[in-house]
């Protein structure tokens, strides 16, 4: 039986904050939520609530918060275990963040 952990980004913001930005901020939230421990457990799912007034989950914040989980778990497992309750424009941020976290090759590799 999977256990479900609920995280509301409102608890990690101030005064109806519309923007979540900065890699260090993302990592600080990650540490507070103990996502590293969560990544180790296969019996846990996580439900992220992003308040409707939030305008942007910047890629720097997203990658600080979830980048390591995506790389550790792989995209399939990440999508299975991380659920997001958010507006459609935030969904676009999440998809862009996932793509960036998985960008492993570089166009200049051909010069190596």
């Amino acid at each position, binding site marked *: 039986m999977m256990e479900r952990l609920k995280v509301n980004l409102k608890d990690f913001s101030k005064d109806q904050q*519309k923007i*979540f*930005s*900065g*890699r*260090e901020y993302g990592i600080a939230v990650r540490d507070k939520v103990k996502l590293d421990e969560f990544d180790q457990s296969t019996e846990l799912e996580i439900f992220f609530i992003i308040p409707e007034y939030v305008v942007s989950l910047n890629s720097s914040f997203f990658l600080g918060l979830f980048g390591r989980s995506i790389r550790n778990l792989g995209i399939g497992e990440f999508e299975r275990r991380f659920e997001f309750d958010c507006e459609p424009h935030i969904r676009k941020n999440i998809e862009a963040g996932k793509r960036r976290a998985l960008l492993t090759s*570089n*166009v200049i590799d051909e010069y190596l």
Partner: protein
Amino acid sequence: MKADCRNAFLIRHALRKHELVLRRIKRNKNSVAGSFGTVPKIPSRVIRAISGRISGKMVGNIDRATELWNLKIPKIFSIIENPEESLDVIYTLSSLSRRTGIAGINFDHSECEKMDLCASALLDVVTLGLDLEWNSRSKKSKLVGVYPNDPRIRKLLQCTGLLSNLGFRANQEDIDSFIRMPLICGRRKVSRLYLGGSDHVTAVQRLIEYLDNCFNVAGYTLNVNGQQMVGEWAGEIISNAEEHSGEDTWWASAYMDLSLKGVDGECQLAIFSFGKSIYETMLESDPSTAQMKAIKALVELHNKRKFFGLFGARNYHECDLWTLYALQEGVSRFKGLEGGVDRGTGTVAMIETFQSLGCSVDAAMKPKMTILSGTTQIVFDGKYSLKSVTTKEDQLQQIISFNKENDLGTAPDIANVHSIRNHFPGTLIAFKFFIDRKNLDAKSRVE
């Protein structure tokens, strides 16, 4: 030097907020003195950050009678259009912090015909820093100046420039001809970061509101996509300033001049930080990472193809290639990040958006932006754009190479990517664009 009284301004009398800071420094004077009473500590973070690290030519001379340093502001005082002469002014100010026998500075703007916000804001921040430092040494300093002959530059100086940042109040009619986001100084939040509310986040939100106000003038508003784009871009720039420069403080300022004919307004925006340049932080990356190996291979290729060197009046060096490379999608300046990619192309994407939205139907009014870091200047004038390229592993990557081929293995256009003779310790980003209802109407019809 005798200045025409009608054109002279005495800045010291205009100080308000700044005086409070000076008083605090005087109170703490003993604590700022060096512990052995020989070399005084430099109390100004700004002067400390640039002193000995900025390079340039000394501008002006001392008036023996008044002991004032006559600092001639160049005809074009602009980081976008004339970074070398503009940085000479900043270099001179930072050098004066250590000179003896100087009673103050006479800022001579009389011949200044063009002034951009970035150069102006940088001058303000360094002047305030210099004044703080002189005061901490109980040195009585005098800041005086000569107004520009050009009435528009005079208005800019009073409403958005040095005088405004020193607390001088211009006449209401002039103030009303600008929408301003006054100079913000932000610092990296280090404790309880997870609670949000950092200067970084506050500044990004303020910038979104400010740009929305600017577009409102032309009857448009930033929708959620527009707000996201500004948030992503501004957040990325401030993140980089906080996390890479080693100085954790940054400045941002903006204005929209509503008095221009033919457009609703001209917007200028400047964000800068002192500390390490982009090239210097890239050099600190772990040399064993694939990214570092790739950039070194690219440098080798440019070397072999003899791309580096002097071309006309411009120089292209290895550090310029490193800086250009740092702007590409997926390039990180974080040390030892295991295969991780945590930078976007927010800066370039935002610049491109403003190249499109920020132009005017009048072809003479072209938006222009620049990134200046260390000795590298990258100019965005709309000639080249960000394009998707497929990597060996079949992934899409956004690339801007500043050449027709959009190939990082080919030399970039020297007009867009080059070295300047000065070294600026930090990174400056300057934007100039227009808000023109006719252009926005045309763009929205196309969409």
